[in-house]
C-alpha cells in the first residue's frame, strides 16, 4: 500500500462510528488534561514557593556566620558577573532613650548596601532604607517606640553613640519566621555600627553577606555560586551558606504531599482514560470484524491492516491528547486566580511546552499500550468470516498473549515512572495494577465457569438467562469485568487517598495554634505575666524555661575538632551549623503532644542527667542513643546523656526544641521563660500595652497573620484536592459507563432474538440487569480491594500519612459498580429494546 493510499484508507476508515471515535478521544483528553494541569500546578507552586523563599531570605543566597565574613568571599562575589552584595551585621544590644533614660534590648541590624533584594521593607515614611539611616539615622520597629515612649525625630543612644529615629518599620521580609526574636528591630547603617565599636567588644554578632544574582539566573547558577563560596571560606565550620533553592520547610512538606497526590491523580486519570480506550477499541473493533474479513478477502495483508488501525489509533490519540493539553493549559492558566493572595507572586503561567509535549506523548503512549491488545486480537479474525458470520478471531496463543501483557506492563510502569519520577515506584505501581488485573481476570473466569456449570433450570427466568449470558462461549464478560474492576480500583484508590490527605491537611490546620509569642520573661515575672495573658482572654497558654548554652563536646571529642573535620569532609552546612550554633535548651517533665518518642525512653534512667533530641537534629549532629553531650551553660560544663530521640510535628506552631533536658538539671542555670499563647483577634494590642507598663523587658510578637496565611493556603489546597479527586472519579465513572454501554450496544441481535421468542421488554431488561449486576459486583469487589491496597501503599509509603480503614468507600464502590454496570448496560440496550425484532435481525444479516 502506498503512503497516499494509506492516508486515503485511514480517512475512509474513520467514517462511521464518529461517536465512538469521539469517546475514544475524550477518554484520553480527560487523562491528559489532568497530567498537564497537575504539572503546571506543581510548577506554579514551586515557582511561588521559590519566590517566597527569596523573599524570606531577602536574597538569592546568603553567607552567614558568627565571625566577620572573610574577604575571600567578597573577592569571589566581586568576580561573579552582575552579582549585587549587601553586608549585614546583626547583634543583640541595648538602646537607651536619652530623654527618659529608659532602655530596651533590641535586635540591631546594620546594613551596607541595598536591602532587601527581594520582598518589601515597609517603612513609614516610605523612603529608601539607605537614605533614612545615612548619617547616624535609625529606623525602629513600633514595639521599640511603644516601649521607650519615642517618636520619629527623637534621639536614641546605641553603644554610646546618638542616632536620630527617622522612620518606623511596618514589615520586614526576612523576619516572618522569627518567632523567637529577642527584641524589637532597629536598623542603622553599617559604618555607624563600626563607629560604635559594638561589633569589636566580644558581642555575639551575626555577620551576613546577602547576594542577588541577575534576574533569570537558574537554580544551577545559585547552587554553583554557593558551592564556590563554600570553597572560598577559609574556616567553613563557622559559616553557613543558604540559598533560596532550599525553600521554606513548613509549607513545603504539605505541598510536597499535595504534589505527590496530584501526580497520583493524574496518573490514575490517565489510566482510567487508558481503560476507556481499551474498551472503546474492543467494541469498535468488534463492530469492524466483518470489514476486516472483507479487507482480508480482497487482499489486504494483516500487516497493512495493523498499520491502518494503529495509524488510526495514533491519530485519534493525538487529537484526544491535543484537546487534553489545551484543557490542561486552560486549567493551569486559571490557577493564579484560584490561589490569588495566598502564595505571593504566583507566576501567571506561560504555556509550558515541555509539559504539553509530555502530555501528548503520554496520551499517545497510553492509547497505544491499551489499544494494542484489542487491536491485535481483532486483527486475528480469519478472512473466512466473509462466508460464515460466526467465525470469531483466532485465540491469541500463550506467547502472543504474554508478549502483549508484558508490553502493557512495561508501558504502565514507564508512565508511572515518568509521573512519580522514580523507577522503583513506577514498577511497584505497575506490579500492583497487574496483580489486580490478574485477580480480576481469574475472578471473572471463575464467575464465567460457575455461571456455565450452575444448575440454572430451577432459577427464575431472568437469573437463568443472566447466568447463561455470562457463561456463554465468546462472551466479553471477562474483558468487561477486568475493565470495570480496574476502574473501580482507580476510583476507590483515589477517593481513599484524597480522604487521607484531606484529613491530614485538616489536622495540619493550625486552628488551635498560638497567635502570640512572648519572650524574655524572667522566671519571677511569669505568674504576673500569666495573669495578664489570662485577662486578655487567652484560650491556650504554653510556657517553658529557656537556657542558652553551647555544645562543647560529643562523646569526649571537642566540638571544634568535629566541626573542622566535617568542614574538610564536605559535610552540609546544616551539620556544621548544628554543632557550632548557640543552643536553646529547655527542661520538661512531659513532652508536648506534637512530640513522639521514636527511639529510647523519656527520663528512664535515674542515674543519668538525660536529654531528649529531635531526630533530624540528631542526624545533623551525627549522634545516636547513648551519646554523651557536654554543654557549656554560660561557663559551667553540664554533661547530658542522650536517652531518647523524638519526632516533632513542627507545623503545629507550638513551642518546640531540638533539645529537651530532664527536670532537675538546669533549674539553677541562668534562664528566661518564653510563652506561646492564643488570644482572641484584636486582644494582642491591649495585652502588649499592659505588659509594656508592668514588664517592660517582655517582648510580644504576634504571628496571627502568618498563621492565617498558612491556614488559608492549606485550606485552599484541601479544596483543590477534593475538587481534583472528585473530578477524576466522576470522569472515571463517565468513561467506564460509556465503555460498558459500548459493549452492551453490540447485543442488539440478542435482544431481538429473545423478543422474537416472546420475551417482554421488561423481561429482557431484567435479564440484562442480572448479568450486569453479577459482573459489576465481582468487578467492584476485586477493584475495591485493589484500590484500598493501592491507597494504603501510596499514603503510607509515598506521603508518610498513616492509613486508616474507611469501609464506607469500598462498600459504596461495590454497590456503585453493580449499579453503574446495570444502568449503563440498560441505557445502551434501550434502542434494541424499543426496536422491532425483525428490524434488528434484518440489520444484522444485511
Amino acid at each position, binding site marked *: *500500500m502506498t503512503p497516499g493510499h494509506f492516508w486515503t484508507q485511514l480517512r475512509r476508515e474513520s*467514517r462511521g462510528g464518529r461517536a465512538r471515535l469521539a469517546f475514544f478521544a475524550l477518554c484520553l483528553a480527560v487523562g491528559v488534561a489532568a497530567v498537564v494541569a497537575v504539572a503546571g500546578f506543581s510548577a506554579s507552586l514551586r515557582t511561588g514557593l521559590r519566590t517566597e523563599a527569596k523573599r524570606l531570605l531577602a536574597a538569592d543566597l546568603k553567607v552567614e556566620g558568627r565571625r566577620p565574613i572573610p574577604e575571600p568571599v567578597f573577592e569571589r562575589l566581586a568576580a561573579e558577573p552582575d552579582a549585587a552584595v549587601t553586608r549585614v551585621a546583626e547583634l543583640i544590644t541595648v538602646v537607651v532613650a536619652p530623654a527618659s533614660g529608659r532602655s530596651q534590648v533590641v535586635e540591631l541590624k546594620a546594613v551596607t548596601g541595598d536591602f532587601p533584594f527581594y520582598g518589601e521593607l515597609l517603612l513609614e515614611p516610605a523612603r529608601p532604607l539607605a537614605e533614612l539611616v545615612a548619617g547616624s539615622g535609625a529606623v525602629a520597629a513600633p514595639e521599640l517606640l511603644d516601649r521607650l515612649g519615642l517618636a520619629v525625630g527623637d534621639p536614641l543612644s546605641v553603644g554610646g553613640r546618638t542616632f536620630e529615629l527617622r522612620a518606623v518599620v511596618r514589615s520586614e521580609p526576612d523576619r516572618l519566621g522569627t518567632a523567637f526574636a529577642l527584641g524589637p528591630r532597629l536598623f542603622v547603617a553599617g559604618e555607624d555600627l563600626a563607629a560604635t565599636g559594638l561589633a569589636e567588644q566580644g558581642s555575639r554578632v551575626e555577620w551576613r553577606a546577602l547576594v542577588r544574582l541577575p534576574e533569570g539566573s537558574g537554580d544551577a547558577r545559585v547552587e554553583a555560586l554557593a558551592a564556590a563560596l563554600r570553597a572560598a571560606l577559609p574556616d567553613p565550620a563557622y559559616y553557613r551558606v543558604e540559598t533560596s533553592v532550599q525553600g521554606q520547610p513548613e509549607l513545603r512538606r504539605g505541598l510536597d504531599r499535595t504534589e505527590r497526590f496530584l501526580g497520583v491523580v493524574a496518573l490514575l486519570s490517565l489510566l482510567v482514560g487508558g481503560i476507556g480506550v481499551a474498551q472503546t477499541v474492543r467494541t469498535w473493533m468488534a463492530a469492524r470484524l466483518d470489514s476486516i474479513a472483507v479487507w482480508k*478477502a480482497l487482499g*489486504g495483508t*494483516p*500487516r497493512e491492516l495493523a498499520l491502518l488501525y494503529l495509524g488510526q489509533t495514533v491519530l485519534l490519540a493525538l487529537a484526544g491528547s491535543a484537546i487534553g493539553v489545551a484543557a490542561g493549559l486552560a486549567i493551569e492558566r486559571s490557577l493564579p486566580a484560584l490561589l490569588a493572595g495566598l502564595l505571593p507572586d504566583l507566576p501567571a503561567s506561560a504555556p509550558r511546552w515541555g509539559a504539553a509535549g509530555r502530555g501528548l506523548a503520554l496520551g499517545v503512549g497510553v492509547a497505544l499500550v491499551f489499544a494494542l491488545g484489542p487491536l491485535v486480537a481483532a486483527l486475528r479474525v*480469519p478472512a473466512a468470516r*466473509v462466508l460464515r458470520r460466526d467465525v470469531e478471531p483466532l485465540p491469541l496463543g500463550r506467547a502472543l498473549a504474554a508478549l502483549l501483557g508484558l508490553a502493557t506492563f512495561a508501558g504502565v510502569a514507564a508512565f508511572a515512572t515518568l509521573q512519580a519520577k522514580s523507577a522503583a515506584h513506577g514498577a511497584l505501581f505497575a506490579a500492583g495494577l497487574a496483580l489486580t488485573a490478574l485477580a480480576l481476570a481469574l475472578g471473572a473466569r471463575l464467575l464465567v465457569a460457575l455461571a456455565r456449570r450452575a444448575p440454572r433450570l430451577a432459577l427464575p427466568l431472568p437469573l437463568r438467562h443472566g447466568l447463561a449470558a455470562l457463561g456463554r462461549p465468546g462472551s466479553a464478560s471477562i474483558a468487561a469485568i477486568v475493565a470495570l474492576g480496574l476502574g473501580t480500583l482507580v476510583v476507590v484508590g483515589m477517593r481513599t487517598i484524597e480522604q487521607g490527605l484531606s484529613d491530614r491537611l485538616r489536622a495540619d490546620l493550625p486552628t488551635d495554634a498560638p497567635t502570640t509569642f512572648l519572650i524574655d520573661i524572667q522566671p519571677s515575672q511569669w505568674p504576673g505575666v500569666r495573669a495578664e495573658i489570662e485577662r486578655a482572654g487567652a484560650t491556650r497558654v504554653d510556657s517553658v524555661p529557656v537556657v542558652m548554652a553551647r555544645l562543647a563536646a560529643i562523646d569526649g571529642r571537642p566540638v571544634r575538632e568535629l566541626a573542622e573535620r566535617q568542614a574538610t569532609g564536605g559535610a552540609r552546612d546544616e551539620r556544621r551549623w548544628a554543632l557550632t550554633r548557640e543552643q536553646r535548651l529547655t527542661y520538661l517533665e512531659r513532652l508536648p503532644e506534637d512530640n513522639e518518642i521514636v527511639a529510647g525512653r523519656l527520663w528512664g534512667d535515674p542515674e543519668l542527667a538525660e536529654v531528649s533530641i529531635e531526630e533530624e537534629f540528631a542526624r545533623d549532629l551525627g549522634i545516636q542513643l547513648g551519646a554523651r553531650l557536654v554543654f557549656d551553660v554560660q561557663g559551667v560544663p553540664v554533661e547530658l546523656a542522650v536517652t531518647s530521640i523524638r519526632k516533632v510535628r513542627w507545623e503545629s506552631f507550638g513551642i518546640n526544641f531540638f533539645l529537651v533536658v530532664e527536670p532537675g538539671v538546669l533549674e539553677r542555670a541562668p534562664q528566661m521563660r518564653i510563652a506561646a499563647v492564643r488570644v482572641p483577634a484584636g486582644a494582642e494590642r491591649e495585652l502588649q500595652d499592659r505588659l509594656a507598663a508592668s514588664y517592660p523587658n517582655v517582648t510580644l510578637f504576634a504571628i496571627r497573620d502568618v498563621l492565617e496565611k498558612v491556614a488559608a493556603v492549606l485550606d485552599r489546597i484541601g479544596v483543590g484536592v477534593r475538587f481534583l479527586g472528585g473530578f477524576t472519579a466522576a470522569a472515571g465513572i463517565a468513561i467506564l459507563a460509556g465503555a460498558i454501554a459500548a459493549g452492551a450496544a453490540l447485543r442488539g441481535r440478542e435482544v431481538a432474538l429473545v423478543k422474537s421468542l416472546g420475551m417482554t421488554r421488561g423481561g429482557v431488561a431484567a435479564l440484562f440487569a442480572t448479568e450486569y449486576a453479577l459482573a459489576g459486583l465481582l468487578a467492584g469487589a476485586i477493584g475495591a480491594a485493589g484500590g484500598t491496597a493501592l491507597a494504603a501503599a501510596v499514603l503510607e509509603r509515598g506521603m508518610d500519612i498513616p492509613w486508616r480503614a474507611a469501609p464506607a468507600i469500598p462498600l459504596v464502590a461495590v454497590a456503585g459498580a453493580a449499579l453503574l454496570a446495570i444502568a449503563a448496560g440498560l441505557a445502551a440496550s434501550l434502542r434494541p429494546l424499543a426496536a422491532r425484532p425483525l428490524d434488528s435481525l434484518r440489520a444484522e*444479516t444485511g
Partner: protein
Amino acid sequence: MTPPALELRRLTKRLPSGDRLLTILDAVDLVVPRGEFVAILGPSGSGKSTLLGLAAGLDRPSEGEVRIDGRAIHDLSEDALARLRRGRIGFVFQSFQLLPNLTALENVLLPLELAGGREPLGRARAMLADVGLAEREHHYPVQLSGGEQQRVALARAFAPEPALLFADEPTGNLDGATGARVLETLTALRARTGTTLVLVTHDPSVAALADRRVHLRDGRIERIETASAARELPLALDPAPA
C-alpha cells in the same frame, strides 16, 4: 502445459465439536481448468461454503492441497495469501459484504488500490457504469437496494480482472427478478473477461448456467454433471461415485 486455474487434492477440513472432531469436508479432489464455470451444489451442511473458503485461501485445510495456477497456497503465510488474492481472485458473497463506511465507488476502488493498478478511479467508474450504477457511485451501501448492493459487489469483484472468481450464493438474498438481473450481469462480465468462476448455489436454475455441476453431500463429492455430452468427461481426478 498451462496449469489449471484451481486444483484441490484430498482436501479435508475438520473442526472441533465438543470433545470430538467433526469432518466438514472429506478428501475432496477437483480440478477447474481456466475459463470454466463450475457450480457447487448441495444441501445445507454439505460443505459447500467450506470448500469455497479453502479453495480461495480464506481458510486453511486440515489436510490436502490447494493449488491456484499450479501454485500451492495451503501453506502460504497470511500476508502471502492476501497478496495472492489481490487482482487474481475475486469474491461475491450472499450478504454482499460491502464495507458500510465506503461509498459504492470507494468499495469498487479498494481492490484496485490494493493491487496498485493504474488509474484505479477511471476503472472503478467504468465498472460501476457496466453494472448500471454510474449514478449511484456516491451512495453508501445502506442507501442502496439489495440488488444494487450485489451489483456493486460484482463490479468490485470484476474490477481487477481476476483470473478466478468465487461466488457464494450470489442471488440467495435477492428476490427472483433481482436475482435474475444480478445473474445476468455476472454471466455477462464473466463472458467478457473469461474469468474462471466457482459458484456455490442452492438454486438449480443458477447451476444450470454452469459448465459443470459438482454435487456435495456430507463433505464428499456425490457426483459431477457436465453441461453437454461433448464435455461429459469429468475433470475431477478422482470423482466420487455418482
